[in-house]
């Protein structure tokens, strides 16, 4: 496989559905990093991931994985990636032991030992049918499968959604362990931003099919801030500095995208650090500018 800097390179990806357009989305996932892919339900995260996996047809744009074209070099790429979906894709009559026998002939680098080690570690029975598993166990099984063929890239679509905090943390720990190898990368779509805050190196945020933000998580958190002020002070803030503002009876909370500059410019006002969740909320309401 050729040398590459980015595990994923998406350029001007456009997919048009009836009533929805994924509009010229571009972003990179650097080799050895974990990218959080954030957005509301229906923002276009799953569409992007499906296009990435060549499950749906794209209208325009290009997708490269490990420097290879995702359509022309599909089989070579698919040997190196693993996808984890929000629901288990395996038939419920199968057992984990069955999956081991099935997939050892599907992937060149499938390791039964690694898979069995994950099953032991995650306390998953190998002889019980998947139908008897809880939701958490099903997700753990998907992750065990994904990590057992030496994949260089994990693509996860809402994989941790609906799991209890204990299982979610267990999964996140496994992802961080997986990233200990500098050749491994993860693209993780989720709307649980607290998870991404814990593990992500970079973040891409899309809304209504459009890319709003992409970059290193720390940079994004560093740049953004929330000014908490009275309504009268809010009027003094230049509209071009504001992403959007939450107005209530007690005052205003204003999201700004250049914290350092705003700190100087509005030195009399309180400027707090923010979270990915708040950033997502304020960006989603950016069209309205003011919201309650």
């Amino acid at each position, binding site marked *: 496989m050729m040398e590459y800097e980015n595990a994923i390179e998406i350029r001007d990806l456009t997919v048009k559905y009836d009533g929805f357009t994924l509009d010229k989305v571009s972003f990179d996932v650097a080799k050895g990093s974990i990218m959080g892919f954030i957005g509301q339900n229906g923002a276009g995260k799953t569409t992007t991931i499906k296009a990435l996996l060549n499950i749906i047809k794209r209208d325009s744009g290009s997708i490269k994985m490990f420097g290879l074209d995702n359509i022309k070099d599909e*089989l070579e790429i698919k040997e190196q990636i693993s*996808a984890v*979906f929000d*629901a288990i*894709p395996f038939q419920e*009559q199968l057992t984990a032991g069955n999956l081991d026998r099935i997939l050892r002939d*599907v992937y060149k680098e499938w390791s039964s030992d690694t898979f069995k080690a994950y099953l032991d570690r995650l306390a998953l029975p190998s002889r019980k049918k998947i139908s008897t598993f809880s939701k958490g166990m099903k997700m753990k099984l998907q992750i065990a499968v994904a990590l057992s063929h030496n994949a260089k890239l994990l693509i996860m679509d809402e994989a941790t959604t609906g799991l209890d905090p204990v299982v979610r943390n267990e999964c996140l720990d496994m992802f961080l362990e997986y990233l200990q190898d500098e050749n491994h990368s993860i693209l993780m779509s989720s709307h649980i931003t607290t998870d991404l805050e814990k593990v992500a190196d970079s973040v891409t945020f899309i809304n209504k099919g459009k890319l709003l933000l992409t970059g290193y998580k720390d940079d994004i958190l560093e740049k953004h801030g929330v000014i908490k002020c009275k309504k009268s002070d809010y009027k003094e803030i230049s509209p071009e500095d504001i992403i959007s503002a939450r107005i209530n009876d007690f005052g205003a909370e204003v999201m700004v995208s250049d914290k350092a500059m705003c700190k100087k410019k509005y030195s009399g006002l309180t400027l707090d650090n923010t979270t990915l969740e708040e950033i997502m909320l304020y960006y989603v309401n950016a069209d309205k500018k003011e919201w309650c």
Partner: protein
Amino acid sequence: MKGLLYKEWCLGKKTFALFLTLSMVFTVLGILVFLSTMYGNLKTWPETEPGSIKVFATMFSYVPYILILFVATSVNQGIFMDCESGWMKYSYTLPQKPIVIVGTKYLYGLIVFACSFIFGLINAGFICLMSGEKFTLDLVRNLIVILVAAICELAVVTPLAIKFKSGRTLSTVGAVFVMGVYILSGYIMVKLDEKYPETATEIIKNIFDKAMDIIGMLSIPIIVVLLMISVFVSCKLYQRREK
């Protein structure tokens, strides 16, 4: 392909085991009935006429045909399970060519049908042996015709299941189709009986025998052409990415 074949086996093995059990139960049952007709209680029954053994033999000769169709249903079930679970979506993430993903379903179907054909022959052989009837080529021909019907079903159902991703819809459409054919055949038979009351049964039997002969003779080209078309269409449908 071995792994994917194993998956199909995992999904269908229960039904196949049931098929084997039923096959053996009916064979044993047949043997017992014939033994009883020849040497046991049935021989001494006042209702047992000299030709009864022939009637029993005819009754049991349908068993292998029914079992082959039963196996065909189990193959369809596996395809429906794939389409209704997330497996089809997941299969797009596997490093396998579409022909391998789709072709496995056909290959599994053919292997299972071949097994059921062999069991059918054994079953028919036992029945002939016990009833003293001749093991004729007609028996083999009938089994081949049923096998062709089962393969036709596989060839039609697989691309449709990939297209519609729903077993229930297909089962309903299939049931309506079979009922339609049944009603139409009934209608034709009634009409023939009205028109030729004396010879209708003979005419139907002749037509049926001719049709069976033709299908029996052309079975291999029919199967090959049908499967080639079906595999091609299934691959195209599988490759057609949704929007």
